[in-house]
């Protein structure tokens, strides 16, 4: 056993012991623990946000405070009344009793874009379901994540939680992460991060819940309230400098309202880049060879991006808008960029606008999120039908909308499942309900039709499905 394997072994051994002890806890004890943890996390929301912004050098600390609030207060509100221990339901008629069982040690991978908030959220949903959690932070967000985990751990211990119910990895290496992920004692990996990481998690042989990449199109229908829509998009796209993977990546409008939309964006301090500037920004935003966004612009402000691209923009510009003619690798800004840069498409009619949304959706955001502003039910349902997305948010800032809890009743979550299209198992907003195994006690309830039916008939091959079915349902 090398050093990495030994470290992983130690970690998993402690986690397994914690899982064993956790198994003895009842719902009331668990609820007390997460209340304490939520309060501790909430009380440190500002400190942790400032630490995260300083260490990662991306985003806006005030917005990171809001993320920490979401990850504590909103997540807590969302899960506090949920039954996650022991018998969670019983139906006398069906005879089925459902019992929640914990999974076991969970390995939680934390991204650099939402570090402390993801730590707080994952700890809360893991503890609520009696699963010990191992926090593995991104190397550029190590300090703040460990601080967040430590705060939670102390609060949990004070409320009587088992020792080692929260652990963290202070120094990671590829081998070490691999050793943890493939350890047979590990029950689940909660993988939030880039495509490579999610793939590694899925390939480990341990069950994993991951996320997929996004490329969120937002369609402005002619029935949309344009000033309202523009304001909402700006709120979402500028939130923490666009680090939320569910934030809008491209606005698509029909020709007939294009001018009005452009004027409104300009009025609300967004700057439309000229073709030369689009090329300059494209070069620094996307790495041409890999087709992926460049880390140096992720979560940066407009000023920093303008400086990097060597362009001049008016003071106070909120978003850089790039009017593009096409979708794909030849138009770098049509790809996902987690920064205040927004692609803009004008199409001559509704069908073409929808088709551009399909292109954007399939360019790299299958299963993630799509957004529409409209006051026309038919358009909304058509749009929802044509998008391959886990969430279609309507008249809502998509970053805050997809996360849930503020603009809708989705589970508040920092791990947004992207379904088969994003190589995930579910399109749900991952929450406590996903971290329990449900055992079903099935009491005897005879299927009367089956027993009343003369089963000898099944041996007679001359009887068709229709004939058997008629007999089977006779007098029923």
């Amino acid at each position, binding site marked *: 056993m090398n050093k990495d394997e030994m470290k992983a072994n130690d970690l998993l051994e402690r986690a397994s012991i914690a899982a064993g002890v956790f198994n003895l806890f009842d719902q009331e004890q668990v609820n007390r623990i997460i209340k304490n943890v939520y309060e501790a996390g909430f009380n440190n929301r500002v400190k942790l946000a400032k630490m995260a912004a300083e260490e990662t050098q991306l985003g806006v600390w005030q917005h990171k405070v809001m993320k920490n609030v979401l990850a504590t207060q909103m997540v807590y509100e969302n899960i506090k009344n949920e039954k996650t221990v022991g018998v969670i339901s019983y139906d006398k008629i069906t005879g089925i009793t459902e019992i929640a069982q914990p999974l076991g040690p969970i390995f939680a991978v934390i991204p650099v874009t939402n570090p402390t908030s993801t730590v707080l959220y994952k700890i809360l949903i893991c503890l609520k379901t009696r699963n010990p959690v191992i926090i593995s932070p991104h190397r550029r967000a190590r300090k703040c994540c460990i601080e967040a985990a430590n705060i939670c751990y102390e609060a949990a211990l004070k409320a009587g939680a088992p020792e080692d119910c929260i652990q963290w990895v202070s120094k990671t290496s590829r081998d070490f992460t691999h050793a943890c992920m493939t350890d047979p004692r590990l029950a689940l990996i909660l993988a939030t991060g880039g495509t490579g990481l999610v793939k590694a998690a899925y390939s480990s042989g341990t069950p994993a819940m991951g996320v997929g990449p996004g490329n969120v199109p937002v369609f402005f229908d002619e029935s949309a309230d344009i000033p309202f829509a523009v304001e909402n998009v700006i709120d979402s796209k500028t939130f923490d400098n666009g680090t939320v993977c569910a934030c809008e990546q491209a606005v698509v409008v029909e020709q007939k309202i294009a001018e009005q939309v452009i004027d409104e964006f300009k009025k609300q301090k967004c700057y439309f880049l000229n073709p030369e500037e689009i090329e300059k920004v494209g070069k620094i935003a996307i790495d041409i060879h890999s087709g992926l966004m460049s880390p140096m612009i992720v979560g940066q402000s407009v000023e920093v991006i303008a400086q990097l691209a060597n362009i001049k923009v008016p003071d106070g510009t909120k978003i850089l808008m790039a009017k593009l003619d096409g979708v794909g690798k030849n138009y770098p800004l049509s790809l996902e960029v987690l920064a205040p840069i927004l692609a803009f498409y004008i199409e001559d009619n509704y*069908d073409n606008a*929808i*088709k551009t949304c*399909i292109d954007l959706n*399939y360019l790299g955001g299958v299963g993630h999120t799509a957004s529409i502003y409209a006051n026309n039910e038919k358009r909304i349902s*058509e749009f929802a*039908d*044509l998008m*391959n997305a886990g969430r279609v948010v309507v008249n809502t800032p998509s970053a805050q909308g997809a996360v849930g809890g503020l603009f809708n009743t989705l589970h508040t979550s920092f791990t947004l499942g992207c379904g088969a299209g994003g190589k995930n198992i579910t399109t749900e907003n991952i929450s406590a309900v996903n971290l329990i195994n449900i055992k079903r006690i099935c009491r005897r309830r005879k299927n009367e039709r089956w027993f009343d039916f003369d089963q000898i008939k099944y041996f007679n091959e001359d009887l068709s499905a229709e004939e058997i079915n008629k007999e089977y349902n006779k007098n029923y």
Partner: protein
Amino acid sequence: MFKLIYELEKQTLFCKFPDRMDSENSPLAAQKVNEKLDELYGEYKDELKKFTENDIEKYEKLKIVFDLENVEFVSSSFIRICIINAKRVKPGNFYIINTQPLIKKTFKIAGLGNLMEIS
């Protein structure tokens, strides 16, 4: 029912199809396209491309455009015809145009977004 127009100057074959490209219509369409290409290039009778050395230059420039303006349903046999024709010409010279949104999504789900230009 099928409309095939060849524009000599652009060396482009435009094909327009009726509303339902089901398993009955699709083979007919394939035949029409093959016949037309055969008439133009002489070597297209078989499904797989065959052409003489002299044809290479002509063939290199050939573009095929499927106009799906009226098409509301496509069967798998029609999608296969699209693939065959896309592979027949130089990469990037096969186009599907004027799709209805749902048909476009069908092609995307079928995974043909990278093989052909769909608009």
